[in-house]
C-alpha cells in the first residue's frame, strides 16, 4: 500500500519544494526589488557623503547626553543587528530591577534638574533589542537635556521630534512613536 505511494510522495515533495521554496520567494524578491526597492533592501539611511549610517527601522545605541536615548537593548553588544533578542527577564527578577535602576541613575546623572517621573519605555528593554523608537513621553522627557547641551531653543528640538513621529495607523492601531535615530541625525544636520 505504502510502496505505491512512494513515487508520488517523492515527486510531489520535489515539486512543492521548487514551488514554495524557489519560485515563490524569487517572485516576491523580483516584485519587491522593482516596486519597493528601498524597503526591500533594509530602509537604509545615508549621510550626505553617501555612506550608510543606519537603517530607519533599526535602532542604535546612544548614551551621549547630546543625543536622544532609545530603549534599553538586551543584545550583546547593545543594538546588535545580527543577533536580535529581548531580555526575557521575568517581572520579579532582581536582574530586571537592577537594569531599571541603572538606567534611572544614568538618566538622572545627565539631567539632575529634571524632576519629572521617567516614562517606562526609557527604562525597559525592547522585544528585539533593536527598537528604533520611543514614546513621545520618552522624547519630551529628554527634550530639555538635549536642548541645553546643544544650545538650541526647546521649540527647535520639539519640531525635530514632531517631524520624526509616526502616529497611530488610521488613528487606531499601534502607538505614536518617535524614531530616535532619525531625530539624532536631524539634530546633527541642524548643527551644520
Amino acid at each position, binding site marked *: 500500500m505504502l510502496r505505491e505511494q512512494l*513515487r508520488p510522495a517523492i515527486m510531489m515533495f520535489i515539486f512543492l519544494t521548487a514551488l514554495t*521554496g524557489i519560485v515563490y520567494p524569487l517572485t516576491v524578491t523580483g516584485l519587491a526589488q522593482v516596486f519597493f526597492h528601498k524597503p526591500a533592501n533594509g530602509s537604509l539611511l545615508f549621510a550626505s557623503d553617501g555612506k550608510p549610517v543606519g537603517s530607519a527601522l533599526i535602532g*542604535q545605541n546612544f548614551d551621549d547626553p547630546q543625543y536622544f536615548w532609545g530603549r534599553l537593548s538586551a543584545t550583546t553588544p547593545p543594538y546588535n543587528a545580527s543577533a536580535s533578542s529581548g531580555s526575557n527577564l521575568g517581572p520579579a527578577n532582581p536582574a530586571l530591577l537592577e537594569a531599571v535602576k541603572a538606567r534611572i541613575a544614568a538618566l538622572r546623572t545627565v539631567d539632575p534638574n529634571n524632576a519629572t517621573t521617567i516614562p517606562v519605555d526609557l527604562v525597559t528593554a525592547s522585544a528585539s533589542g533593536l527598537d528604533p523608537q520611543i514614546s513621545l513621553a520618552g522624547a519630551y522627557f529628554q527634550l530639555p537635556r538635549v536642548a541645553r547641551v546643544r544650545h538650541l531653543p526647546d521649540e527647535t528640538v520639539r519640531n525635530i521630534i514632531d517631524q520624526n513621529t509616526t502616529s497611530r495607523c488610521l488613528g487606531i492601531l499601534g502607538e505614536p512613536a518617535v524614531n530616535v535615530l532619525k531625530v539624532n541625525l536631524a539634530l546633527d544636520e541642524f548643527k551644520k
Partner: protein
Amino acid sequence: MNGNNVIQILFYLTVLLLTVKPLGIYMAQVYEGKPSLLSIWFGSFERALYRISGVKFEASMTWKEYAGAVMLFNILGIMAVYAIQRMQAFLPLNPLALPAVSPDSSFNTAVSFASNTNWQGYGGESTMSYFTQMLALTVQNFVSAATGMVVLVALIRGFVQKQTKTIGNFWVDLTRSTLYILIPLSLVMALVLVSQGTPQTFASSVKVTLVQPMKDASGKPAPEQLIALGPVASQIAIKQLGTNGGGFFNANSGHPFENPTPLSNFLEMLAILWIPAALCYTFGVMVQDRRQGWALLAAMLIIFIPCLLWSAQIEQQGNPLLTSLGVDQKPAAFQPGGNMEGKEARFGIVSSSIWSIATSAASNGSVNSMQDSFLPLGGMLPLWLIQLGEVIFGGVGSGLYGMIAFVIIAVFIAGLMIGRTPEYLGKKIEAYEMKMAALVALIPHIFILIPTALAVLLPAGKAGILNPGPHGFSEILYAFSSASGNNGSAFAGLSANTPFYNIALGLAMFFCRYWLIIPMLAVAGSLSAKKIVPVSSGTLPTHTPLFVFFLAMVVLIVGALTFFPALALGPIVEHLMLAGGNLR
C-alpha cells in the same frame, strides 16, 4: 483600561469576522473541486504535476491510505529539513558562511517545522543560511499548514459522505491547499509587508557607520553596526498565514524588519486567525448547514474575547516593582504606559496583548513581544490557551479538527445526559469515535505534564532556566505546553538549545502532531462509512446557543481541571508573590 485599548480590540475582531465569509466560501470551492479563477488558470499545470508524479488523482483513498500518504510525505519533509541544515555549509546562498547546525538542534527544528509547531531553539539570523530558510523552512511552512488543512477536509468529508469507504485524495488536497490558497495569499501578504519595510533580498548583511561610535567590552572602538538582511518577507507572510510562527530573526515579529509598522502588525495579527476562523465557515458550507460553522466559531469566541480583554487589562497595569521605583507607567496621550519590558514602542500594550492571545489561541506561536517578561497572569493566559488543546482557532485545519474532537466528546456527554445515542450532523457517534476523540484530547496532556515533571527533576532540565523562583518553573511548563500544542511560542529565557531540550521537545512535537492526525483520519473513515440519520424530534440541535455554551464549557473543564495544579505552582503563585510584595 483606556478607550483606545478597547477600540483596537473591537476593530481587530470586526475586521476578522468580516473577512471570514469570503475566504471561507473560497476555500470550500477549492476543496469541493469547483472552478475558481485560479483553478481555471492553473488547472492544467495542476494536472501536469499529478501526471508526472504518478498521482492517480481521480482515485479516492481509504483512511488508512490517506494516513499513510500523510506520514510518508511528512517524514520525507523531516528528513529533508534535517539534511539541509546539516549540509548548509556546502550549499549555496550562505553569505555569512554559517556552519552546519548541530545534530540535536537539526532534529528539533526538522520536527518543529514539519509538525507546524515552529518552536525555535536557535536564533534565525545567526544560525540558518538563506538556502535553509527558503528551501527547508519556508517549504515546511507551506506544506505543514497544508497538512493540517487536508486532514480537516478529509474529516469533513466523513460527515458529508454516506456509506463510502474513502475520504478523498491526499495529493490532490495537498496540492490545492498550497497552490490555490496558501501561495496566493502569501504572495500578496509578502508584498504588503515589503511595502512597510520588511526586507526581501539575497544580498548579505550590510555594514553601517554608527552615528555615535561605541566601544566594545574590551574598550576598543566599535564604530559599525552589521545589519542582518535576507529574503524575509516571503517567509514572514506564510509564517503568519499558516499558523507556523517561526521567525526569520531571533526576535520574531518583535524585530522591526519582521514587523515594521502598526499596519504590518495589524495584518500579521489578522493573518494569525484568518484561515483558522474562515475554515469554520468552510466547514459550514461543506456540511451544507452554515449555522454549524458559525456555532463552532462562536464557541471559540466565547473563550477568546474575555482573554483578549483580560490580557490588555493586566499588562496595562504595569509592574508594581517599577512603580515603587518611581517609574511612570500610567497610560496618557504621550505614552502607552504599562508593562513595557520586552515590548516594542510602536506596539505598546494593547497590540502586544492582542498578539499574545491570538498567537496562543491559534497554534501560531509567533510573538511581537517577549512573553517571558509579561506579568505573571499576562503570561499565564497564553500558556493556558495552549493547554486547552489548541482548539480555540488552533492551527490551520488542526484547530478545527481538534475542536470537532471536542464536539464529539460534548455530544457524547449530552447523549448520556438525555439518554439517547449521540449524533452529530446526522452521523451516529459511537464508542469508536469517542475513543479516538478522547485520544486527541488526552495525548497532549501526557506530553505536557510528564516531561515537565521530569525536566524539573533532572539537572539537564533545570540548567536551562533563566528566571529564578516560580517563573523558572513556568518557563519549562510553557516549553512543553508549546511543543505539545504544536504552538511554538516560548518563555524564551529558557536556554532550550541543548541536547536534552532539543530531543525531549522534538519528541513531544512529533507525537502530539501525528498521534492526533491518525486518530482523526480514523474518525473520518469510520464516519464516512456510516449512513446519515434523518433529523427527528429527539435530535440534539448543535447550532443553538445552548450547545455552543455547552461545548465551550467542555473545552474549559477538560483543559482547566488538568492544568490548574501546574498553573498554581507557576504563574499563580508568582502573581500572589508579586501582588503581596513578598518575593522570597
